């Protein structure tokens, strides 16, 4: 069955890249522009994996991850965080918020797909 990935990123460029990379890897892609929209999207759809950015307006990645983890229906969805490699501190914060794993920016499709495969059942 096609896996559904929810991507949460405020940058259109990044969303478009994610979409191209993920659809060409055979995933179904749902997108949201920030944490608030991400949580709204989750009201109607249950993705297999979530990929989220950290720096976003309205609700950042940390808030979003916490939001997902405290939601009974979605707390078991793996969440990957898009991060810059140097951000060990952010990685740790994201992990504490409940992130499952991370993907290093700049964006590398192969790595993204492998990370998704790794965390999805």
């Amino acid at each position, binding site marked *: 069955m096609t896996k559904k990935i929810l991507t949460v990123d*405020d940058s259109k*460029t990044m969303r478009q890249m994610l979409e191209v990379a993920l659809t060409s890897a055979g995933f179904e892609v749902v997108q949201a522009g920030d944490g608030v929209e991400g949580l709204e999207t989750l009201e109607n759809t249950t993705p297999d994996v979530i990929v989220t950015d950290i720096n976003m307006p309205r609700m950042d990645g940390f808030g979003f991850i916490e939001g997902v983890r405290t939601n009974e229906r979605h707390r078991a969805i793996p969440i990957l965080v898009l991060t810059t490699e140097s951000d060990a501190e952010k990685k740790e914060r994201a992990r504490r918020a409940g992130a499952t794993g991370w993907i290093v920016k700049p964006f590398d499709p192969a790595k993204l797909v*492998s990370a998704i495969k*790794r965390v999805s059942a």
Partner: protein
Amino acid sequence: MDHLEAIKQTFFQECEEQLAELESGLLAIENGNHDPEIINAVFRAVHSIKGGAAAFGYDELVEFVHVFETTLDLLRSEQLKPTPAVTKVLLHSSDVLSDLIHSVRNETPTDSQKVASAKAGLEAVCGEQQGAAPASRGAAAPPEESEEIDFKPISISLDDIFGADEEVEDRARRFSIFFRPKPTLYARANEAIRIIREIKALGETEISCDLTDLPLLTELDAEGAYFAWTISLQTEAEASEIEQIFEFVAADCDYTIEEQRVPFDEEPEAAPPTQPLSDDIAQVMPPASDFTAAPPPPPPTEPPPPGGKPPASEPSPASAPHQPTQETIRVDLDKIDRLVNLVGELVINQAVLSQRVSEAGLPRGSSVMIGLEELEQLTRDIQDSVMAIRAQPVKPIFQRMSRIVREVAAITKKAVRLVVDGEGTEVDKTVIERLTDPLTHMVRNAVDHGIESPEERIASGKPEEGTLRLSAMHRSGRIIIEVTDDGAGINRARVREIAIRKGLIPENAVLSDEETDGLIFLPGFSTNTTASSISGRGVGMDVVKRAIQALGGRISISSRQGSGSTFSMSLPLTLAVLDGMVVNVAGQILVLPLTAVIETLQPRTGNIHSLGSGVRVIGNRSSFIPLIDVGMILSYRFQEIDPTTQVALLVESESGEKCALLVDAIQGQRQVVIKSLESNYGKVPGIAAATILGDGRVALIVDVDAVLSLSRGDYHMSEAAMEAF
């Protein structure tokens, strides 16, 4: 990959938006608004640009943005104060960033010196902060930066890993892996089984499950983690590859990876008693002999029952305040143009239908009439909505002006503060686009010539810093844009002197203050002696005026000696609809752009004079204005008729030339939908476009400038008549 080009386009479009966000944020900060949200937004903008730039490998851009981002990060974490000096550096950097993005986009060489100096400026700001607070994290220090900049994607090819178990030969090694998850591992949606599966994928495995920690069912916490595994792996893979599997869970489990140097063929018996593991969780259950507790517990990896007790299941407070989102989509302008066009057709069609129905003599209250009225209402709503699609706030263009102000102020060594009003005022996109040049010119002028040098200002008792106010507002269906400076005002004596010297006005001309100010709009007027490289008030003001008039707008000045000038532009909200004066000429209906019409005159025998070769002029307030018979010019008739039976419309061309157009009668004013004549039929001299009237007839829209030049070609208007103005 053709996707790449498309994404690049998106990236650059987004860069524009981010730059706008960045600049408006920085300006707000400059104006004393240190709201963390604004600082965050500024940081995000730069951060976003960096992300995209890195993905496309724009190294120079990444390098600069990185330094910028680092500085903003310090600002964000309040290690750096947004002092005026700091915001100045940041604003300058945003200008440089904008240039840099432009160069990258257009593949033109970058001004590396400018970039380097901006970078140095940023680093200096960071450095100062470091000196001031050495105890705080020195993240901004250059050494770490250079490392950080160097980040490269590390791609793991899973295929290689999966392919590894094909040949297990002498290179095969044996690892003993111990793995005990903590409850947090499951809480973060990781699964032990995935880790085990990945290990299995590396080679041949034998797995045993340790259940000693498994409590009695009554004591079992569904959210707990009770299993541990020992995995014996025979693989060609390196220890680092196994380590990598634990990348995401390293902190949420205890694990060890030990390499065992055991010859390949000896091992199977030597391995500890194992239980083969399948992907099916149920089968992870150990054989009864391994049990220390009696009843088999539910598998811990099972999701907890819905509605479970943990406090964590309460709705997230973070998701509670749902602000309404402004969602947007990007649409090709072509598509909208087509829609506007179609709506124009609809409006016309509706008017035609209305007229036909009323001609058919149907009674007022008939259902057809009622339906028609509803249609009319609907059509009007659609028209408004479609026009609103193209409407955009003037904010981006106003923002661009802040950069112009900074640049010109820097060159002229003046202190100028830009104050912006009504930047949310919306106007049609085409109007905005064509407004940039004239507005830029006026803003440059205002800083260069309007506002005095700091010394002069202090001498005349004004604050050292000049203020330039840019405002936009809607007024009776038009947009008014004003550029106001608190400078010295227009020096009328000087303007007059120049105009006389250039032969624009006779030496003895009696002019009001307004008329004198208006002289700067005349082509050929220039206060050249004071004009700098940036601008000259007067230089090109005729160009500004023409650009505004081409937009169907008007421009006016009000100036007070010593306290500044205001340039006011009144523009239509859209170019798709025109305010027209509908007139009759030789049985035809024509439309004149209302913006060109100054006043209407009733020609009387006494004030019409013939000059030389058949040129007629009409006297109007101490000047003589050439009189043009529109019917003759457009060849509707070949015989002049008595002007006293006609109406004269005093019009002004884009170049400021005045003349009186003779028409048979005025029908009234009306908004008309502009239809291109050129693309539908062909170019017609003297005609700008066409429109369709309610009765379905086509009416031509007169091009006033073209009519004037046509008349010149025909009549060879005398110089005397021209200068009569």
